């Protein structure tokens, strides 16, 4: 008897078949929605990085942002946003946006560094705007002051992003995301470009040195271990109260039940 016939009434047959079907479905789906960028790049001839960027833009961004970056019903115009915006938005994976929700969320970038640079060059070529930065030129470790950065952060950032940079709620379902785990250049660019709900912090309001201090404080907070134990999210009394009512009281009441139960 063939293998399949022999085992077709095996009790594991159905679960295995379902797993195979689901996996196949999933793989088909991800293949269908995969970013087209890589393949098309190598295929076509490219002359300058700006032309490269234009090509990527036309394929991946123009459907929302317009063929001439003029924007549309669902996306703003990109004229004058500068390379900094592109480097931040595309480099952190926010763009291309996954769904048309309130807010672009950080996710795994679709385009690689080269492609991001190309896109940025293209957008910047159409109208002047803030330039992109590299991590190397942002010397926060050498030129920043942690304590000053903390003061600046609490004054300018904590009201949206929370005292420890964990993020916070804005109105109507929008939110200020966590600032943890963000590359230094992206933090710099985000202050300069003021994406979506975030205001613009130009170099005259928060000087470049002050920006480096902010980045240094953020990195320090990121690497600071929790001295007192598990951090419970670094969001304050809400999680502390939850722990007391679940674990704390639960444990104590459980012990009380044991204490008053009759021994065998």
């Amino acid at each position, binding site marked *: 008897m063939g293998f399949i016939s022999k085992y077709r009434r095996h009790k594991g047959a159905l679960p295995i078949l379902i797993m195979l079907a689901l996996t196949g479905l999933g793989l088909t789906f991800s293949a269908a929605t995969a970013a087209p960028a890589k393949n098309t790049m190598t295929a076509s001839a490219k002359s300058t990085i700006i032309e490269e960027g234009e090509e990527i833009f036309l394929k991946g961004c123009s459907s929302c942002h317009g063929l001439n970056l003029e924007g549309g019903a669902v996306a703003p115009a990109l004229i004058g946003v500068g390379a900094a915006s592109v480097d931040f938005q595309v480099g952190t994976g926010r763009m291309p946006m996954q769904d048309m929700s309130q807010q672009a969320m950080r996710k795994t970038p679709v385009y690689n560094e080269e492609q991001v640079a190309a896109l940025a060059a293209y957008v910047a070529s159409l109208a002047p705007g803030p330039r992109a930065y590299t991590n190397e030129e942002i010397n926060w470790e050498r030129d920043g002051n942690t304590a000053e950065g903390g003061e600046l952060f609490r004054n300018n950032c904590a009201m949206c992003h929370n005292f420890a940079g964990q993020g916070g709620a804005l109105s109507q379902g929008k939110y200020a995301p966590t600032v943890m785990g963000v590359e230094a250049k992206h933090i710099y660019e985000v202050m300069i470009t003021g994406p979506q709900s975030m205001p613009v912090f130009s170099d005259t309001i928060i000087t470049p040195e002050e920006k480096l201090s902010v980045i240094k404080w953020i990195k320090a907070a990121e690497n600071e271990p929790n001295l007192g134990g598990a951090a419970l999210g670094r969001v304050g009394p809400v999680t502390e109260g939850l722990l*007391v009512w679940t674990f704390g009281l639960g444990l104590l009441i459980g012990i*009380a039940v044991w204490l008053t139960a009759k021994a065998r």
Partner: protein
Amino acid sequence: MTARERVAGTVANYVDERTGAAAWMKKNLQKVFPDHWSFMLGEIALYSFVILLLSGTFLTFWFDPSMRHVVYEGSYQPLKDVEMSASYASALHISFDVRGGLLMRQIHHWAALIFMAAIVVHLLRVFFTGAFRKPREFNWILGIALLTLGIVEGFLGYSLPDDLLSGTGIRIAHAIIQSIPVVGTYLSFFAFGGAFPGEVFIPRIYIVHVLLLPGIFLALITVHLMLVWYQKHTQYPGPGRTEKNVVGYPLMPVYMAKAGGFFFIVFGVTAFLGAVASINPIWLYGPYTPGQISAGSQPDWYMGWLDGLVRMSPPLETHAFGHTISWNILLPGLIIPGIIFTGMALYPFIESWLSGDKREHHLLDRPRNVPNRTALGVMSLTFMVIAMINGGNDIIATHFDLSINQIMWFSRIGIIVLPPLAFVITKRICLSLQRADRELVLHGKETGRLVMLPHGEFIEVHEELSAEKKFTLTQHEQPKAIALVKEDVGGVLNPKGIRARLQARFSAANAENIAKPTATEVKELEGGHH
């Protein structure tokens, strides 16, 4: 006589000759305490209080309650050279430069949270079992006073380090004081020694927090415990338990060992929390300045309901004759809490007034047997829980991808609609449970065993309950409705007037119970009925 007995005898004699202690020691060492886990909730609060005293005293050896401006020179680098108050700097010093300092700070704060949580669950137990009835009404009022003072004490305590989060809480307290009509601005200037934030508030609340309130607590807790001691603890109904006895274990040795051991356990659990879970990391908040704020600012959990009520308040303010009354602050901040706590404190009297029950009660109620009280309790809890949820609406929004505006509207509407709904549902559940009890007594417990009778019918074998269980399920009283007497035979109106009508109405509601099975009914069934 052994050597040990001789020494003990000498000591006892020495003390007795000077105090006459032998008589009351003998009586009290034999005192009987009923043993149930739900009677230990108040103990958790009591032991947490002791832990607070011990850990708090430790902290006072280093804490500097002064608001004078200093520049930080301690070991926490991210705050190097930052300007702050001396109280914040000393709290940082305790956290980073005193060995065991952070541990004791954390134990102190965890103990405070557990203290309040234990008071609340203890209150719920006392409420749902009716332990506040005569002769314990005064003890109930003491308990509400302890709850209220506990909330204040906790708020003052976590405000002492003068960090950004707790300073914001003080700002809000200041706004509440200032909004009081006529005297508000004077009260706030007196409390703060001038304009907000001033230089005297932290030293003043320090003395309230470490001396005044702990003293009041000690006094109130002592009276609270003495009443329990003297009136003897209540007990759950059951075989052998009556209104006139207490069944349990003697103080020495059983109760001393169990209660004493439980103290060490509560202390140990609190220390465990202090060891593994970070709480109130003031160095991350930064020093308080009125120009800064953090997203997701909340008070400690026991004030979360207050914050939630304030957040959901409609924007009501009246301006008349050159004066302003901020209803959006007074209503959620003072008036509604005042009504709630006054209502709570007076509840034993309200209940006995409405039910007409003036007898002593030492046997507890099973909550299902008093559906109206249980439903009222669940209704109040629902109110508080919705308020608390709204207090954390921004944290909930960020973690569950919701909108604070939607949560706010849910709370505004929910807090009016959901409590009555909870009342109705709870009452129905209580009546269902009563019905289930009746079934159990009359028909026994379902065993899950099926038997085929000779004529082909399938029945499930029911096991008759033991006499003890049957008694427990039927010993309760079921009040009858008080008939409304509008006028007497002569045509004279009832002098009680509206009170009589209210009493009749409420007693009718109280009498809505599933009639418990009587002895005759049970006897009728004894005889192989399935």
